């Protein structure tokens, strides 16, 4: 028996931190939501109140879904791909959505439901192409998906730029579409469409949550997972498809909001540990809260507003550093 290893480390008791962490996240979410509804450039002057409230509530719903879904998908993909640097856009779906949306602009019909539907169509096609590229002899490996996704991402981003040039649009538009925003204009039709997105997002995130244990096991490697009884082919395919559809739906309304899907899961892991059954729900709440907070700042700090993705980075990093230091 080798005794020299005992008693040289202090074990980490994570369970003590779980409840206060949940309280903290929920408080963050509630205050961000409240701020998002209470504060804005529109003001709350008399006759406009109803219209402004409508816009704010829609924006709130959009922010919750976008922040929540992106964080949950980021967490799931990080587990599936065994890669802490994965994010919802690794698979190239966001670029496909941007291409679909920009094509509706270039082809002259982007009003109403056309833009989000075009975006979703782009995402769908991208998903199918990435899947086909990643298939080798009937099997899909995690590495194959990542490679195919990254390649498609590059290709599609250039195509978006090309489409904008050919369509004689300013490149600034293409950049914003790929940078993400919560200021989507809604019409009667798109509100219904968004309602469907809300329902499907809840179902999709719920499904990913139900895959928590399989994702835990898969994060230790596909072969090990296979020996532990996980159907890695099925899990890989299913998580890929559900993630792509979720991201496609969100991105076709908001563009590619960066940072949330990559960093929020890590923040949550620092609070709860890496088990997906905690990380996935935690990521939804934290993602929604942080995104709403960033949006409030982005809209109100400077007249005319700042791009959302810049603010998400600026807001997320201090959180990250604070948590990192409090652990040490």
């Amino acid at each position, binding site marked *: 028996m080798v005794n020299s290893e005992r008693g040289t480390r202090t074990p980490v008791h994570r369970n003590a931190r779980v409840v206060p962490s949940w309280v903290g996240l929920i408080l963050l979410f509630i205050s961000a939501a409240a701020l998002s509804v209470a504060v*804005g*450039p*529109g*003001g709350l*002057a008399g*006759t*406009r109140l109803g*219209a*402004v409230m*409508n*816009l*704010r509530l*829609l924006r709130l719903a959009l922010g919750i879904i976008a922040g929540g879904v992106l964080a949950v998908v980021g967490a799931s993909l990080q587990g599936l791909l065994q890669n802490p640097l994965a994010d919802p856009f690794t698979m190239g779906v966001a670029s496909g959505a941007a291409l679909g*949306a920009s094509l*509706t*602009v*270039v*082809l*002259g*019909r*982007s*009003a*109403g439901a056309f*833009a989000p539907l075009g975006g979703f169509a782009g995402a769908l096609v991208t998903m199918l192409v990435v899947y086909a590229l990643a298939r080798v002899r009937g099997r899909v490996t995690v590495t194959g998906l990542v490679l195919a996704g990254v390649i498609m991402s590059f290709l599609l981003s250039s195509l978006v730029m090309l489409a904008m*040039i050919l369509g*004689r*649009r*300013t*490149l*600034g*538009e293409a950049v*914003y*579409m790929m940078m993400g*925003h919560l*200021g*989507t*204009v*809604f*019409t*009667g039709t798109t*509100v219904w469409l968004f309602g469907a997105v809300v329902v499907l997002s809840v179902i999709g995130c719920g499904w990913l949550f139900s895959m928590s244990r399989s994702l835990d096991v898969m994060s230790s490697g596909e072969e090990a997972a296979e020996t532990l009884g996980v159907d890695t082919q099925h899990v890989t395919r299913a998580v890929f498809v559900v993630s792509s559809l979720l991201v496609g739906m969100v991105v076709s309304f908001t*563009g590619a909001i960066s940072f949330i899907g990559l960093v929020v899961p890590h923040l949550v892991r620092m609070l709860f540990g890496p088990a997906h059954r905690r990380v996935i729900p935690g990521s939804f709440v934290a993602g929604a809260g942080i995104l709403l907070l960033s949006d409030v700042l982005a*809209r109100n700090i*400077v*007249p*005319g*507003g*700042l*791009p959302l993705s810049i603010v998400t980075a600026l807001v997320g990093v201090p959180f990250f550093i604070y948590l990192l230091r409090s652990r040490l």
Partner: protein
Amino acid sequence: MACPRQPGVQSGLRVVSLVPSVTEIVYAVGAGKVLVGNTNQCDFPEAAKGVYKVGDFMSPDLERIIALRPGLVFLALPIHRQLLEKLNEMKIPVYASRPADIRAVFNEIDTVARLLGRPASGESLVAAMRQRLDSVPAFADTPRVYVEISGTPLMTAGGGTFINELLERAGGRNVFAKSVQEYPVVDPEALLAADPQAILLLHPDMRAPDVARRIGWGGIDAVRQGRVYDQLDEDLFFRPGPRIVEGVVLLAKLLHPGQTGNSEE
């Protein structure tokens, strides 16, 4: 604005224009025949379409330009900076266009006309443009205007832009003139607060009725009054060339219906 290396003109001058607005100037001063190359985006007047294309405005092909053995190349800064350096190295005369406002456009027309040996045409063109511009009266009211450049996402033009100046000349007030960015993304709420009296849709994929269908926009003055203008020729507002004054006149007509005193309705 960089100065050309060889002022004056020689007969048989071969000119390449990499800037659609300058291409328009070249034809407007009657020097169209010296143009041996232009870009895919040079599409006005009709004759410009038939000229040999050296590539896109965004990324013209240096080899094609050189193959034409040009005696003068028109380009734009800052987008063609690298091209400018290469052409300087090869000692090919270059004129860089960078007009910041209407006055600068007039100057540019004069300069280009002189470079092409047609100073008189340049002067008369500028005179005609000034006259047309002066025909736009000073209006008593300056309605609030929202200029929409893109619908997905909503984008507008800030204070430092060309379109902003045109708007002011036409007697309008850009509601986003104070914006920090040149082309900011619009927060729909801010638009509601600004309550514009007229909306200009400067992108062809959206029509006026589409704007009325936007949730929360029904209360905006411009929407209620039906003063949403679509299907506008964007080149009149974005190309700093001879047609810029037409842009001002058009805007004046839209913003002040019945007041322009012109019989061209």
